[in-house]
């Protein structure tokens, strides 16, 4: 049986992955409540036109003579058809079961209303939730945390994966951060009671350092204990791999064990493909593959919790429609947003597709933006996390959300 046969077979009955590694039908929703949102930011601007490929459009192939993904049915490297117009980069084959189970949706031609092509400004705007406005000091996920009933005040209600705290989670409410590399569970001096006791006294002040320290201690006590157990079970002395799938499995383990975690964030770099980005193989494909496998591992690792989880994958802007002189792409505008989860109404592409005709391109070169990225997030926040519409003004100040088909993206 080849891979595609296996995929076809495994998705025929709308199967979803469960935590024990078996493929089974979805179970009842968990009783303990607490919907979760995981946001993955692809830093560096992923080339969305080579993620969800508009294969129905000849302009796509004309603009990309060396890096286009072949149409579905092509003898080699064919894109995986999603509908009559769009297809998935075959490097993301690991996500096809989720698509066929109706648990993966894409919103194409999504992005920011701000025109910047600076990675750093655009990432800031993606994270602070106020395009064009740099002075917003906190991140929209921290403001969201404040609006999430029962979540605020818990040290691990929101977790950033990594050694530093990203802008998106900065703000008034305490959040945790933790790298998920294999060494994360290694014992530290602070894990010894006499050391902890001495430093607890030293960091007892109610100032930014004192608060960060106490959050760090609480998060470590809660999160690392779980990682430790996992490591002892899983590794048998062998080093754990440090790959997206392995990290995603660890994240799934954390979330499945700790129901306090309501929001999680991961920023992944390496998408700024100015040179030789490749097509169905090569640089971009080599980065997409582990990401797709990682997301599939996350869905699988969450087991029954997957029904309460939505994952949104986005990037600060898109890339030029035309490939550049070096078989790569330069900074562009519109992109595709990915939405996955047990209750996502997936298996379809959302958004108004503006097309790639010259007159339709933004500034004559880029995919236009027809869906504000905040509209995509607002739909998930209000429908999945059940935040009332009025609280959206706090989370995305100045953004007027209009009702659209996106209202139905989560059941």
């Amino acid at each position, binding site marked *: 049986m080849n891979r595609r046969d296996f995929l076809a077979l495994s998705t025929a009955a709308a199967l979803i992955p469960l935590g024990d590694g078996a493929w089974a039908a979805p179970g009842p929703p968990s009783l303990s409540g607490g919907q979760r949102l995981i946001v993955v930011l692809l*830093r560096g601007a992923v080339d969305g036109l080579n993620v969800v490929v508009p294969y129905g459009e000849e302009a796509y192939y004309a603009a990309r003579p060396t890096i286009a993904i072949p149409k579905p049915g092509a003898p080699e490297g064919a894109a995986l058809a999603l509908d009559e117009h769009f297809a998935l980069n075959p490097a993301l084959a690991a996500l096809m079961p989720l698509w066929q189970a109706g648990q993966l949706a894409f919103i194409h031609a999504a992005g920011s209303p701000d025109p910047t*092509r600076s990675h750093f400004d655009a990432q800031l705007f993606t994270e602070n939730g106020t395009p064009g406005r740099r002075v917003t*000091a906190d991140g929209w996920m921290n403001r969201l945390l404040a609006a999430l009933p029962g979540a605020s005040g818990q040290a691990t209600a929101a977790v950033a994966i990594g050694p*530093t705290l990203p802008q998106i989670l900065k703000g008034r409410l305490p959040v945790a951060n933790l790298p998920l590399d294999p060494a994360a569970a290694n014992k530290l001096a602070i894990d010894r009671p006499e050391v902890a006791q001495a430093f607890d006294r030293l960091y007892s002040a109610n100032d930014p350092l004192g608060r960060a320290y106490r959050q760090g201690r609480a*998060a470590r006590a809660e999160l690392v204990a779980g990682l430790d157990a996992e490591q002892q079970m899983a590794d048998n002395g062998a080093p754990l791999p440090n790959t997206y799938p392995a990290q995603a499995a660890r994240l799934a383990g954390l979330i499945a064990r700790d129901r306090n975690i309501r929001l999680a964030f991961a920023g992944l770099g*390496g998408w700024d493909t*100015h*040179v030789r980005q490749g097509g169905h193989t090569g640089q971009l494909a080599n980065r997409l593959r582990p990401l797709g496998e990682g997301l599939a591992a996350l869905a699988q690792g969450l087991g029954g919790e997957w029904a309460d989880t939505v994952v949104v994958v986005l990037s600060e802007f898109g890339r030029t429609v035309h490939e*550049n002189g070096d078989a790569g792409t330069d900074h562009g505008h519109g992109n595709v947003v990915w939405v996955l989860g047990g209750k996502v109404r997936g298996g379809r592409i959302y958004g108004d597709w503006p097309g790639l005709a010259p007159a339709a391109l933004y500034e004559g070169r880029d995919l236009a933006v027809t869906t504000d990225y905040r509209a995509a997030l607002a739909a998930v926040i209000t429908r999945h996390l059940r935040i009332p519409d009025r609280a959206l003004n706090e989370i995305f100040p100045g953004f007027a959300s209009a009702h659209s088909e996106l209202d139905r993206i989560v059941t």
Partner: protein
Amino acid sequence: MLRRSLLTTAAAFLALPALPRPVKAAEPPDRQVLHVLDRLAFGPSQEDFGHAKRVGVERYIAEQLDPNSLAEPPELASRLAGLETLRLDPIELFVRYGPRLPGGEMKPSPEEIKARREAARIILREAAEARVLRALYSPRQLEQVMVDFWFNHFNVFALKGLDHLWVGAYEEAAIRPHALGHFGDLLRATARHPAMLFYLDNWENSAPGSRMPNGREAGINENYARELMELHTLGVDGGYTQADVIALAEILTGWGLNRPRMPPADRSGFYFNPARHQWGEKQFLGRVIAPNGEGEGVEALDMLAKNPATARHIAGKLAQYFVADAPPTALVERLAARFRESEGDIRAVLRDLFASREFRGSVAAKFKSPYRYVLSAVRAAGVPVSNPRPLLGTMARLGQPLYHCATPDGYRDSEDAWLSPDATVMRVSFATALAAGRLPLLGVAEAQEPAIDASASRGAPVDAAPLDSLLGPAIGQRTRAAGAAAPAELRAAMLLGSPDFMRR
């Protein structure tokens, strides 16, 4: 970048007091000495503190601005002399350690490529060792601080393709000689260095329809042109447009890499290929650039170096690094004026900065980056280091791996960037291990992994008494009280892991 961090740190819940404290005549003299060492140096060592106190802060600052007046200790010189790859030029590095040349006898097997990649690891190891040893032991501290500052400003990433060969050479040839020199020289040196040409793809930026050495057809690539304006010179609000990005990319077509088998050449690795240059007139920043081959790029770099937006951008970044996350506007304006008048004389700008009321009054206003925190702890503790790997590992675990910042904006230097829950528990754990003598800092740097029995490579516990007398004026009441209540063997750890020592 800068403006963003200035503004975002203004929020009350995140920021330190936004302005430096008012000047207090009553600041004890030893506190001023510590302050100057916390900014011009990687914190106080016993030796540097004694020296600065003896000669006074004004003289210390003058010495630091004239590093050649300070002799490097012979032990450091001999350690550096043993690092052979530091002295190799980019061509030699490519020949000895690069992948085999295309068009050569046989295509290298995957095993051969892997073996050469493995052998090439010595380059990064030696560059990192030199960087850390100089930062710890050189009396020319400001020079080391500015090498870090400018490397970060003109960041390149060791894991991008061939850059693992050239990151150390880039620091030695393009950054270090100009660290206290003229900005224009830095700009030109970085623009022509293979490490930057490769990192931001300009080596492939070519007139449409021209061909690369391998025969592949090439074209315009905007990557370097955009970051050159946004990050290196004008700043994101510096008044350029997308049309300027494209014009600058066209101006820089043909700026690429020399190859060992190509004629002529100098050993710098830079080569301007007229056949890949887009000839013709260009409109750049409101000016007409006449067709002049390589000279067009020289002219554009000169325009950028002299642009007032560049002066403001660099002045703001220096003030943020040396004074406060949100530096006073008046100071930035004065430094920008000095930058313009002196045509980018870095030393002149720093002299004004260090003499300013704002600098003198900004005691402890900055939160240390991981790089600085680790180095300052080792310097204060006086722990001998022959193997810097545990220090490099700690920097990486704290989110600031040396030579491995993937993005061209470099690492930010602000509390906002580095204060996090995980960072605090990691820092106090590092301080505890360092103070207890448990880090294998005495091993051999070449070892890939610490030996199984690492006890021989570990030092003695740090004595708290001299550390306390060194840092004393910067240690507050709460830390004193907590230290007094702690077991004696933890006292040095508590000084190095204290909130007071997280700041500079």
